[in-house]
């Protein structure tokens, strides 16, 4: 492989390894802790479980946003071409979202097998006969299979990674003015969307006339967003 | 050889002088190899190009000669030439001003000669 590509990958990998490991250790730890506690304290009457999808969305957003400051200036300084950076970053974000989806749902499936109970959704609290649960998006829509959940988490994760990466780029290149300005613009669009009702219609469409392909489309949207970021990267300079 | 070079005069001249001094006072004997430009550069922490310039000038003036693949060497002829040159410089730099200063102070040639023969130096 091209030495520069290899170097860029190596750098990104080394950089991302730490937050990735720490995140999963903490998350996994809390998960085991909550399972353990529920057994220790209340027996099988009250059970708490939760799905790991939501945290990885947040993780994706944070990592995407910080990616700009952590990786890009260094790569430019060391002489990598911006096209190279663009390719490597894109691939890394995709791989990251897939990895996150896989780890999250594998852990979840494992916990299910080990504890024997079938836990539904994002989290479930069962006390006696009553149960409170906040379900995973997949439950709303279709079968709760491992593969479905991975696809959903990957696509949402990537969409968030790409969007926040773009946001991070905007902040980096145009400062607070550009960054908050963009956010304000988005907010305005959203408000308009609600007012004009087409946003509500869109959401309605997602949840009623729904196909699984939505998530593939979401993934593609993420890619489009990422392609837009190339425009910002082309003449990027470091401060 | 000088211990250190300074930034106030062209380095190649200082290198030249340093080598010339060594030849004259016998530190560098006839037939002996002169340190290479890299060795000089390392010793004095100077740019090798300036050391090279000094050496090249000495070679051009035939004071040292180059043996291909081996290095620069002191020649008998070169040493003689150097001494001659230095004697001439000595005359211009020391003797002429000496005589002019002596004239200013009204010191005669005999008195000057006596001074030269005086013990203690």
């Amino acid at each position, binding site marked *: 492989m091209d030495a520069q590509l290899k170097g860029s990958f190596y750098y990104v990998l080394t950089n991302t390894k730490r937050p990735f490991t720490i995140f999963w250790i903490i998350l996994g730890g809390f998960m085991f802790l909550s399972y353990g506690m529920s057994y220790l304290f209340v027996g099988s009457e009250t059970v708490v479980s939760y799905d790991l999808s939501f945290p990885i969305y947040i993780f994706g957003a944070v990592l995407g946003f910080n990616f700009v400051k952590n990786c890009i200036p260094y790569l430019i*300084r*060391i*002489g990598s071409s911006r096209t190279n950076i663009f390719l490597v970053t894109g691939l890394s974000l995709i791989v990251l979202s897939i990895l996150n989806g896989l780890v999250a749902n594998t852990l979840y499936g494992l916990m299910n097998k080990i504890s024997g109970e079938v836990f539904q959704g994002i989290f479930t609290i069962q006390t006696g006969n009553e149960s409170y649960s906040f379900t995973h998006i997949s439950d709303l829509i279709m079968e709760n299979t491992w593969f479905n959940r991975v696809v959903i988490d990957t696509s949402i994760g990537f969409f968030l990674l790409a969007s926040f990466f773009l946001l991070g780029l905007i902040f980096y290149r145009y400062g607070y003015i550009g960054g908050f300005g963009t956010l304000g613009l988005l907010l305005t669009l959203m408000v308009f969307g609600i007012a004009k009702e087409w946003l509500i219609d869109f959401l309605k469409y997602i949840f009623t006339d729904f196909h699984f392909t939505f998530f593939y489309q979401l993934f593609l949207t993420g890619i489009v967003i990422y392609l837009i970021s190339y425009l910002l990267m082309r003449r990027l300079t470091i401060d | 050889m000088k211990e250190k070079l300074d*930034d106030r005069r062209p380095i190649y001249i200082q290198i030249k002088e340093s080598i010339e001094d060594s030849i004259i006072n016998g530190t560098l004997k006839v037939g002996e190899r002169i340190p290479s430009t890299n060795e000089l550069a390392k010793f004095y922490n100077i740019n*090798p*190009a300036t050391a090279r310039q000094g050496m090249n000038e000495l070679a051009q003036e035939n004071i040292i000669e180059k043996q291909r693949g081996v290095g620069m060497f002191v020649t008998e002829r070169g040493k003689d030439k150097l001494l001659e040159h230095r004697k001439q410089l000595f005359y211009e730099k020391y003797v002429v001003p000496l005589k002019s200063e002596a004239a200013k102070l009204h010191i005669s040639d005999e008195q000057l000669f006596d001074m030269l023969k005086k013990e203690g130096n």
Partner: protein
Amino acid sequence: MNIRVDKLSKHYRQKKVLNEVSFQIDEPKIYGLLGRNGAGKTTFMEILAGHQLPTSGEVYVNSEIPFDNRSILEHICLIKEGNNFNRELKVKHVLKTYSLFYPNWDEALANTLVQEYKLPIQAKVKALSKGMESALGVIVGLASNAFITIFDEPYIGLDAAARKKFYDMLLEQYEERPRTIIFSTHLIDEVSLLFEEVLILQNGELILQEKAEMLRENAYSVTGTKEEVEAFIQNKHVMKTKQLANMMTAYIFGSQVGVEQTDLNVEGVPIQDLMIYLTEEGVEKEWMPN
């Protein structure tokens, strides 16, 4: 590799950091880039290394523009005063990353230097002292073996012994493999003997580009009585004069011919002082070669 600077300008809002600078560098030498704080040196070096874009004008390396140009940039290495590395990375990862980006990377040299400077390779950059971080910068700059290696005051925190080690290494590497080294420094006296050519920037303009030996020959001071000095400096380029009672010292740029005939005391002016005199506000500069 040849570097051609063509009317290079850089503005930040109202300030002109570089103002139509033009010059050329053709041969691999050790170049000293000097000037006071704010003269534009760092900005120039950043543009050369592709970190910044000019406002107008261009820099050409082998007739190509270095910005975002991989084939050129893998032969340019810029080490700055600080902030050269991602602080979260371990030293060994930094070295590995650089080794992949610079095709002529000298692994053996890097290892030797790491040991010489006693750099803890398992430590993160942010755990290093300032001096250690600078040592890492210097190691990377030397081991990169880039055809154009640029050092922008890379020695913050390096003690005198460490700096000396750096200069020794620089010289040794330069002798083995001549390359273009651009060195910007405030500690001019320490390295002035290494310079082959000197460039001086002032207020974003290039005021001097000369061979170092030429400067050593043509920068001198004469000291004597006021009358003697004034008589001598009649048609000379005087950078500065100082006076005490009836004694005067004049700092002159030009040939020393004729000074032996006078009774004036002559001394050479080291490059550091030369830079100071030439970059003082109000010094006449029309006569300068640039």
